[in-house]
């Protein structure tokens, strides 16, 4: 933590960066995103295992990107988010400094995207145990049981769209959910409408999701909604052998095809 504050302090002092995007202590012992703009703010920065949120989303949120060149405290989720955003040409020309933090707490300063690519080449992305357990459990169920499970979960959804706002890859300025001609998703919260919304979001993230689980983390009613895009990401990995948010040369699996793609259900 001291080292992070030291590096961040130096960056702000030299006026190289205008804002440090990081974490601080929030209410109820929770960790919350924090934007250090002045020397005094530096002491509030924290890091550690509890800082698991994906901060990549703030690289393109207008009120933050208007501040000027950022330095961003980045765990593995944030790193993959940044990489994927760069691949999708959202932040590829943006100047930034990445302060990569690994599980052991070591900090490495990365100045550009090719540094990031090098850093990520040695990292093997892994789903956390809890999520994997839930996935396995759901996979073991029959389709009928799964439907009951998701129906119960969808009943809770209040359509706050926090999942979308927190997702680094949901960057569309106009989302299909706000379209009203035609209206794909009903405005009011209803079981089928909620199901359609989450199904659509998962599909729009297919081949792009970086498996950070941020959508599930921010859900105010604790729907494990991240399991949908994560399940697709796993499917993509087994089918096409690709991971997302790892290298600058990767593509989107859904915007490409192979003439000999295998399936066993088209007659």
């Amino acid at each position, binding site marked *: 933590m001291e080292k992070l504050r030291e590096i961040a302090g130096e960056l702000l002092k030299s006026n190289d960066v205008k804002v440090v995007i990081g974490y601080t202590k929030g209410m109820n012992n929770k960790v919350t995103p924090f934007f250090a703009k002045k020397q005094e703010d530096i002491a509030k920065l924290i890091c550690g295992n509890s800082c698991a949120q994906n901060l990549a989303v703030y690289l393109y949120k207008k009120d933050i990107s208007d501040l000027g060149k950022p330095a961003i405290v980045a765990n593995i989720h944030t790193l993959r988010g940044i990489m994927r955003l760069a691949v999708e040409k959202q932040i590829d020309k943006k100047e930034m400094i990445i302060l990569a933090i690994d599980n052991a707490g070591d900090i490495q300063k990365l100045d550009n995207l090719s540094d990031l690519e090098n850093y990520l080449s040695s990292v093997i992305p892994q789903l956390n145990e809890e999520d994997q357990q839930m996935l396995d459990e*759901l*996979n073991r*169920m029959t*389709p*009928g*049981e*799964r*439907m*009951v*499970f*998701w*129906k119960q979960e969808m*009943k*809770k*959804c*209040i359509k706050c769209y926090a999942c979308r706002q927190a997702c680094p890859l949901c960057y569309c300025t106009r989302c299909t959910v706000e379209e009203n001609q035609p209206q*794909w998703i009903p405005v*009011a*919260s*209803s*079981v*089928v409408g*909620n*199901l*359609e919304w989450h*199904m*659509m979001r*998962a*599909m729009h993230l*297919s*081949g792009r999701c970086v498996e950070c689980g941020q959508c599930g983390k921010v859900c105010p*009613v604790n729907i494990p909604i991240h399991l*949908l895009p994560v*399940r*697709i990401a796993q*499917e*993509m990995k087994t*089918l096409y052998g690709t991971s997302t948010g790892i290298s600058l040369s990767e593509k989107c*699996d*859904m*915007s490409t*095809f*192979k*003439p000999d*793609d295998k*399936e066993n*259900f*088209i*007659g």
Partner: protein
Amino acid sequence: MEFEPKIVAFVCNWCTYAGADLTGTGRMKYAPNVKIIRFPCTGRIDFMLLVKAFSNGADGIIVSGCHPNDCHYTSGNFHARRRWIVFRALLDFMGIDIERITFTWVSAAEGAKWAEIVNTTVDKIKGIGPYTAYQEMINEAWEEE
């Protein structure tokens, strides 16, 4: 009264629609349960349309287009195939009955195949019964935990 399933068919203009036309001009009879919706290409068939069909009370869905390598737009059906592979996996994970969706390739010359596809699909859905599990959800309101 016997259950008559509602089937929605999403087909491409260039192959399957012409194929279904051939079924008619060839005077082959097939089950009248199917409502055909014509698309420019299978690549245009948004996955949301399939979901919307269920939400509007369909019991079964047929999705059909040109055989691989026969696409009028060269690669529309290849893109569609990948989308279906992934979408089918997602539907299965969400507990939607994927047996109710028939994916198939029917060319403009396969009028007989189209009749057979529709007939077997209708028989299959008659066997499974109406999709009440989904239709019940439609009217279910959001409730507090």
